[in-house]
């Protein structure tokens, strides 16, 4: 079968430092797949290389079976792969609605239109509002992003990504900086996304990982250390040693 994401010996170097080292990763269509690993293991770097934010040094990337190795980030987005950021990357002075419309316009190739009014983009605006309703950001639509509490800004981060109508969405620590109660809400909302959407996420909150992931890949020093189901991973001695620690974690019920 073909994978939503497949990498072969994907490598990313910064100067002489190898952040991602010959990673061969396969993520099935519709999977809920987590990547964990020590700080600086290369998780975010892997996300960069996958999405083309930073061009990879060597190896290949396939998205929905198509070789996208040399393609621009734009091309990858257009083929259905979207990401969010570990540290919010929003348009802080714009309204929440404008934030998501920005992505819809790009998707619909309307962003190059400079001769008509934004107000005339009815369908875009409508879709934006619908999406915000879905993300439970409806009441915030006309607020400026900078005025929102952190947790809600985290949601906008995800809403923008969804506005590109991705087949595959890569989330980099979506719950970072959000209080426990809220982070669970965020994950529940993510989990409720359509099943045919492929989900790859990086997260340090093990409660969330073990609760929501179906498969886990452990990255250490840029390379894949092991991969398995949450139950397998939580038992793995090496993973405990380099990452989970003595406290350990168990697959949630």
């Amino acid at each position: 079968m073909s994978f939503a994401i497949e990498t072969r010996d994907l490598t990313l170097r910064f100067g002489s430092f190898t952040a991602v080292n010959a990673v061969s990763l396969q993520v099935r269509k519709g999977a809920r797949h987590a990547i964990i690993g020590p700080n600086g293991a290369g998780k975010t770097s892997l996300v960069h290389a996958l999405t083309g934010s930073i061009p990879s040094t060597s190896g290949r990337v396939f998205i929905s079976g198509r070789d996208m190795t040399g393609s621009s980030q734009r091309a990858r987005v257009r083929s259905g792969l979207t990401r969010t950021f570990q540290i919010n990357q929003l348009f802080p002075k714009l309204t929440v609605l404008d934030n998501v419309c920005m992505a819809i316009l790009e998707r619909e190739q309307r962003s190059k239109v400079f001769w008509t009014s934004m107000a005339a983009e009815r369908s875009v605006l409508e879709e934006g509002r619908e999406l915000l309703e879905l993300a439970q950001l409806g009441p915030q639509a006309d607020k400026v992003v900078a005025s929102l509490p952190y947790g809600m800004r985290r949601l906008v981060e995800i809403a923008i990504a969804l506005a590109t109508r991705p087949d595959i969405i890569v989330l980099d620590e979506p719950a970072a900086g959000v209080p426990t109660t809220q982070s669970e809400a965020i994950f529940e909302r993510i989990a409720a996304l359509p099943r045919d959407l492929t989900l790859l996420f990086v997260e340090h909150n093990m409660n969330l990982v073990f609760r929501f992931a179906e498969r886990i890949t452990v990255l250490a020093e840029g390379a894949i250390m092991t991969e398995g189901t949450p139950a397998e991973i939580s038992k793995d001695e090496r993973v405990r040693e380099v990452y989970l620690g003595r406290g350990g974690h168990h697959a949630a019920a």
Partner: protein
Amino acid sequence: MTQKYDLRVALPILIALALAAYFLFPGYLGLFSTIFIVATFALSYDLLQGYAGIVSLGHAVFFGIGAYTVAILGGAGITDPILTLLAGLMINAAVAGLLARIVVTGNDFTRLLVTLGVGFLFFEAANQAHWLTGGADGLASFTVGEIFGVFRFDMWGRTAFFYTLAILVIVYLAVWRITTSPFGLALRGIRENTTRMHAIGSPVSRHMAVTYVLSGGLAGLAGAALAQTSNFASLDMLGFERSADVVVMTALGGTGSIPGVVLGATIFTWFKDMLSAISPRYWHLGIGLFLMASVFVLPDGLAGIPARVQRWLRRRSS
């Protein structure tokens, strides 16, 4: 909200003030035309810097090419003002298109210097191409025809007044339309967060290049209008000082605000003219102190005044 304000309030006020000035100060028509031209130029720059976030220290290149286009065509017998005006627009858009690649790459700081360097290269090239541009002597003996074959540019500057005002209004509307369009929203996105724009698949460099082309073209209109109304084109029109002036005026007015920038250009030009008439030798002191003070008194530029007044009123009432 401010976007509607720009169109429904600020623009009519601008036109009304201009017309009032025409009748009240008939001896100042030349100055008014200059102000309209400079404001047009500033708007073209604001589109680039205030909306796409591309700082440039070489924007006068387009102004100058616009002026030379008129002068050279005029010398070759093509004298219809509307025609040469449009030629200024097109040629500049083309030149901007060629330059866009090297300008768009890099960061703010390098753009500043790349545009600066490009500006000087054009200056030097125009200086050397004596046969075409008249070198340092400039071009003065070209004909400017009558608008629609009817309105001659008279020495009192009446035709020039209405002509340059019309151009300003058209460019005002054009910039307003561009910045309130879907493309305008994308530009704001680029200014606010380029990383995210890339991540949603936006062709950031292409958007910036398109802005550069639009902005260059509009700047060409301003330059062409100056050559037409002053029957003259010379090196300084694409020189560094004009580029620096436009940056200063835009900042003074408040980048990213259309009426603010028009006001900034007006006040800067008018203030310079007034000071230099009062003290032809020492007026730099006045303009210097004025600019320094503006940083403290008007931190958001002239465009920030309404908001400050509002805040002040609110504080008083509460």
